[in-house]
């Protein structure tokens, strides 16, 4: 192959991935030869840091407790579940019909649309989550997602939770 074509192919792969990522973070392909941006800013005089925290867990004696990360797989991979968590672990929405044709049309649909899961697959997932909750000594009937808005005062090192939104999924 001509050298120029080799570089042209490389350029298409490089620029393609970058353009998609710039359009939206959700469009970032894998693999794409890009590094994370993180272009947020902070006021130098700010003495308070405001951030949103998301935790998953269950109830123990009527109180929310985080699920143990090493139980829910392990610490490293725990962070990976952002998209799955935001999609409520795939447990909500319509059930996929049990018999699905694996024809080309179905595959293309699956490629372009959000995945749907059968009742059986959802049951398996529920049992899996319930088992992890049990192992964390938490109630296995509901999985909770806690969204909290927190202020951290730098000087005093005090964390002040401004608001907490607790949502749950029945298992």
């Amino acid at each position: 192959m001509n050298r120029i074509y080799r570089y042209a192919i490389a350029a298409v792969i490089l620029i393609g991935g970058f353009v998609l990522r710039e359009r939206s973070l959700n469009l970032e392909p894998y693999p794409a030869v890009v590094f994370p941006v993180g272009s947020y800013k902070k006021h130098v005089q700010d003495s308070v840091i405001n951030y949103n925290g998301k935790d998953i867990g269950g109830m123990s004696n009527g109180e929310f407790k985080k699920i143990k990360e090493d139980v829910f797989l392990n610490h490293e991979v725990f962070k990976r579940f952002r998209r799955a968590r935001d999609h409520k672990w795939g447990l909500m929405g319509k059930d996929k019909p049990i018999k699905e044709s694996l024809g080309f049309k179905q595959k293309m649909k699956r490629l372009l649309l959000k995945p749907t899961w059968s009742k059986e697959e959802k049951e398996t997932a529920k049992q899996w989550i319930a088992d992890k909750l049990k192992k964390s000594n938490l109630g296995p009937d509901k999985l909770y997602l806690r969204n909290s808005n927190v202020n951290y005062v730098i000087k005093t090192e005090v964390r002040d939770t401004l608001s907490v939104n607790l949502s749950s999924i029945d298992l």
Partner: protein
Amino acid sequence: MKKAINQFLNRLEYNTNVNTKSLSYSRVFLGAYILIIMPLHWQWIAELPNTFFFPVVISPAKLFTGIPDQWFFFLIELVFYLCVVLFTIGVYSRYALFIGGIVAIFGQSFAFAFGKIDHNLFLFIACLVLAFTNCGRYLALRKDKPVSLKLQRTALGIGALCIAFALFSAGYGKSWKWLDFDMTEGGFLRWFYTSYFVKERQDLLSYWITLFPAWAVELMDYTAVIFELTGLIFLIVGRKAWRVYLGIAVFFHLANYLFLNINFTANVPIYVIFLLSPLWMELDKVLKNRTWIKKVVFGLIAIQAIIMLANVLGLTSSEGLNFLVHSGISEFLLVSLWASIVCVTLICLFQGRYKKEKLE
């Protein structure tokens, strides 16, 4: 037009070219690095329920309708480690590098199918770049058939282009917001605050940032953006300039690790290809009459490889020397690794080693 493009590419390839023998050392380094520092696993994915599976829009994982079975991940892990072992010891190195790189990207696409994408692609880009070179001609149990030097130079050129472009992709987004000439706001500061106070990454020198004056923190914003955006320029300017840029990149990663405790460990092998070539040539001279050192090193790597293969087969949970990366001395090890690359680069630059490098 074609002539101008060819002249441009000639220049790029001259600037990024390295000695073939040193590529063989980089190949062994890459293999040992994957086996000891960055072993990859995918069998854990099969444990998860299908409903967690949300691959990104464009990804090899998207071709699947759910999480594949355990045997699938076992197979890709086995193929990957067999490839790593083969290219490390130098048996069908080129094929092993290519297949290993592709299999790893494929496996990682499943690991990132739950939401978070890690930017550790350069570990596999290093495999793919070396796959199109003559790195399997030396330090190999079974020497590869040679490929044309033209192809080798192009592979190295594309590898260098990938590094410069990836850094550009990070700097581009920052440039619109960080180059604001406003001393009251800081981008690096935001990174630091989130890292130090929210994620509680307070190791190494991170505390020092709290002692920095505002102007120094603001200066870091400009330095980071200018550094990330200018890789493509350094790439074209000259051989030395490209190494200077990579030296700064390694220093940048070292500083990131020291101050923000963020480690870009996966980038080490690709930097090593371009930066450590003079060191490899010196090492080659030293090892010429001391083959026992080569044998000891290969022996150690072979033991590590056997442990990793046994781990994949489920015969042991040990990862051999990888325990060092998770032990109390891991920070010391990683800082030493980055710092030694910076030091070697500086020495080579001052002694003009990159200019003197013998190229085929």
